[in-house]
């Protein structure tokens, strides 16, 4: 029977040595390249670690467990009568070797240098606490070469001069425009932090005088009055100030856009989500294919939402965390929202996020008033409630043009919009209908003009394939030319990226202008 301590020492030592050898830190070339400091630190850390480990290891005491070979393979035996152990010195050597190898893996010359420099780094003045000396005045910019002035009608003269037909450029000789130098006045920020050579006592006096309104210039009574007024104003708004801090720490939403879709949830929710949580919005929409293929109706709608709002290939995106999609929504979701918004939102677990955003906006307005009252710089006005909260419904199976109404939630007017698509087709030009409907729901009807009469080409010819297909470049399916997408032989080469890009660009210009974040 072999003692567990001996077994563990062999495994630990052998494993660490093998790992170190594999990573190359036992190679003579590497060991000789180590600096004195690094060698000292490796020895120090390894000795300390081995000392700590061996303190509890007690190699001179026999193990209370052992491994042996039984009929069914390796067997663990408790309190064996006789145990075979490695000598204590060997166990110590193995543990020390393991610690040395691990330390060698972790500590190199660079790490050692960083550790040595650490005290000096900690003692160095921080820019957040001290006024650091300004960088030397920016070097005078090298004078840019003067731009050559183009002269109309001189191309031929210059060409003739280059070819040697004329010996002089005459009035076409190069003229240089003097570069216009504009000096931009940079505002100089006054640093009120501690100066590098400022004694603590003086710095303390400055802070105290600042806190009480310039003790040296103002009568102490006035300064104290000012401070009391300041504190009282803060106390009056204490609830909002604390709530603001809590929402910053807790990460409450900056906007809440809820979208009810009367289609089944496209995501099965595996049991692993109980532990890992639902995948993040940004993960779901991270890598969308350009054009949807082989998707069901729900997946198509989700794909369209992702492309419209979150695909980075089309430029500035909306904020992924601000949108909540409610799948399996009732077909009359928007009617119920219009009838009793608070009850429906509560039923759908959406009321908390809507109220959190509206409350955050009200606090922002209140604290804006506080800063104005204190004579400080007033922050910009928060966006209107309609820009940060929206309620939308996408209905499948019933054609409805995008329309909307207003409801009141806690006194704030919020928009409710609805659109319906009679038949969601996932093949051919079907996705175009979903794109157009979803875009009109989220951002209103586009003012893009419909496609003018497209080009007609002789159908009886069997040549000039490339030129005949070239007008597809202008056949925008979002503007009405959907027939190429209905043709299996053409769908692979329809320049959909160009048309999709233009459509989403137009959509995002309208959508982002209507939306805001706190």
């Amino acid at each position, binding site marked *: 029977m072999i003692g567990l301590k001996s077994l563990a020492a062999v495994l630990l030592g052998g494993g660490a040595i093998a790992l170190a050898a594999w990573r190359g830190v036992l190679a003579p070339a590497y060991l000789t390249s180590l600096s004195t400091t690094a060698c000292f630190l490796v020895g120090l850390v390894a000795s300390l670690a081995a000392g700590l480990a061996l303190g509890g290891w007690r190699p001179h005491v026999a193990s209370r467990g052992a491994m042996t070979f039984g009929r069914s393979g390796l067997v663990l035996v408790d309190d064996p009568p006789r145990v075979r152990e490695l000598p204590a010195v060997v166990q110590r050597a193995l543990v020390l070797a393991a610690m040395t190898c691990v330390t060698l893996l972790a500590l190199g010359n660079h790490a050692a240098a960083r550790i040595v420099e650490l005290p000096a780094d900690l003692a160095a003045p921080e820019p957040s606490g001290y006024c650091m000396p300004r960088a030397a005045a920016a070097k005078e910019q090298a004078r840019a070469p003067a731009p050559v002035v183009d002269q109309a009608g001189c191309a031929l003269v210059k060409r003739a001069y280059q070819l040697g037909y004329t010996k002089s450029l005459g009035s076409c000789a190069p003229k240089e425009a003097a570069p216009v130098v504009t000096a931009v006045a940079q505002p100089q920020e006054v640093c009120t932090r501690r100066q590098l050579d400022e004694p603590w006592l003086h710095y303390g006096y400055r802070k105290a005088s600042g806190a009480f309104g310039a003790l040296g210039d103002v009568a102490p009574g006035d300064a104290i009055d000012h401070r009391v007024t300041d504190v009282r104003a803060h106390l009056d708004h204490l609830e909002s100030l604390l709530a603001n801090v809590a929402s910053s720490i807790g990460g409450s939403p900056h906007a809440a856009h809820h979208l009810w879709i009367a289609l089944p949830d496209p995501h099965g929710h595996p049991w692993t989500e109980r532990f890992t949580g639902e995948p993040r919005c940004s993960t779901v929409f991270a890598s969308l294919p350009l054009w949807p293929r082989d998707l069901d109706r729900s997946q198509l709608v989700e794909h369209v939402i992702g492309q419209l709002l979150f695909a980075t290939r089309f430029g500035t995106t909306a904020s992924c965390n601000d949108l909540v999609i409610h799948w399996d929504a009732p077909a009359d979701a928007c009617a119920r929202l219009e009838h009793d918004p608070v009850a429906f939102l509560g039923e759908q677990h959406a009321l908390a996020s809507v109220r959190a955003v509206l409350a955050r906006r009200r606090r922002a307005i209140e604290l804006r008033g506080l800063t104005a009252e204190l004579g400080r710089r007033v922050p910009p006005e928060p966006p209107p409630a309609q820009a940060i909260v929206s309620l939308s419904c996408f209905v499948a199976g019933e054609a409805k043009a995008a329309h909307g109404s207003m409801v009141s939630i806690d006194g704030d007017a919020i928009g409710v919009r609805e659109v319906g698509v009679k038949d969601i087709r996932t093949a051919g030009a079907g996705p175009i209908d979903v794109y157009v409907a979803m875009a009109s729901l989220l951002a209103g009807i586009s003012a893009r003009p419909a496609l003018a009469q497209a080009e007609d*080409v002789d159908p009886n010819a069997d040549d000039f394939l490339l030129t005949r297909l070239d007008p597809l470049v202008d056949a925008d399916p979002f503007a009405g030319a959907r027939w190429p997408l209905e043709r299996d032989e053409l769908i692979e080469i329809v320049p959909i990226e160009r048309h999709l890009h233009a459509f989403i660009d137009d959509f995002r210009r309208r959508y982002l202008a209507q939306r805001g974040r706190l």
Partner: protein
Amino acid sequence: MIVIAILLLGAGPRAAYVARALAAVRALGPDGRAALDRAVYDATRARCRTDAGPAPARCSIDAAKSACETAPDQTSCDAAADVIATNLRGVSELVDDATKARLVRGSTDYHAALAAELLHRYALLATELAISSRADPEAPETIDQFCAHRDERPHTCEPGDAACIPSLAWPRCVAALVWYVGSVGAAP
């Protein structure tokens, strides 16, 4: 509505047409290519008044056909002229107005200067083709599939960036590559 002549335009027939066009461009030889390129350009300018934008496809085809009227092998000439006509229609996507203005000012033969400028852009596209897959970059199937799927990856170009080829429709991508591969070879 545009009516496409070739009704059964799958990947196979597309690749076959690319092969035909590639063979036609190669068969012309350097002088033949330059002559046909000039003839199609002149005919398109004369017939289609293309100053305001790309010519109508029907007009481009008629102009290209007229350039091949005296060719001994009409079919082969038409295939090569198709490539040239499509490249002419795609000029504004590859060469911006500022570069065109520079070419107009700086050269006596605008068409030759433009052709040289376009060849640089085609070379970039051919490089993209060569590194996109391990398949033979001169194979018609490789060109067809590369152009059919190239736009699945974003190609966002800053204005005036001559080293960036924007997203291209299949005919323009194929025409550019066929012209370059047929003239120079796939390796730039």
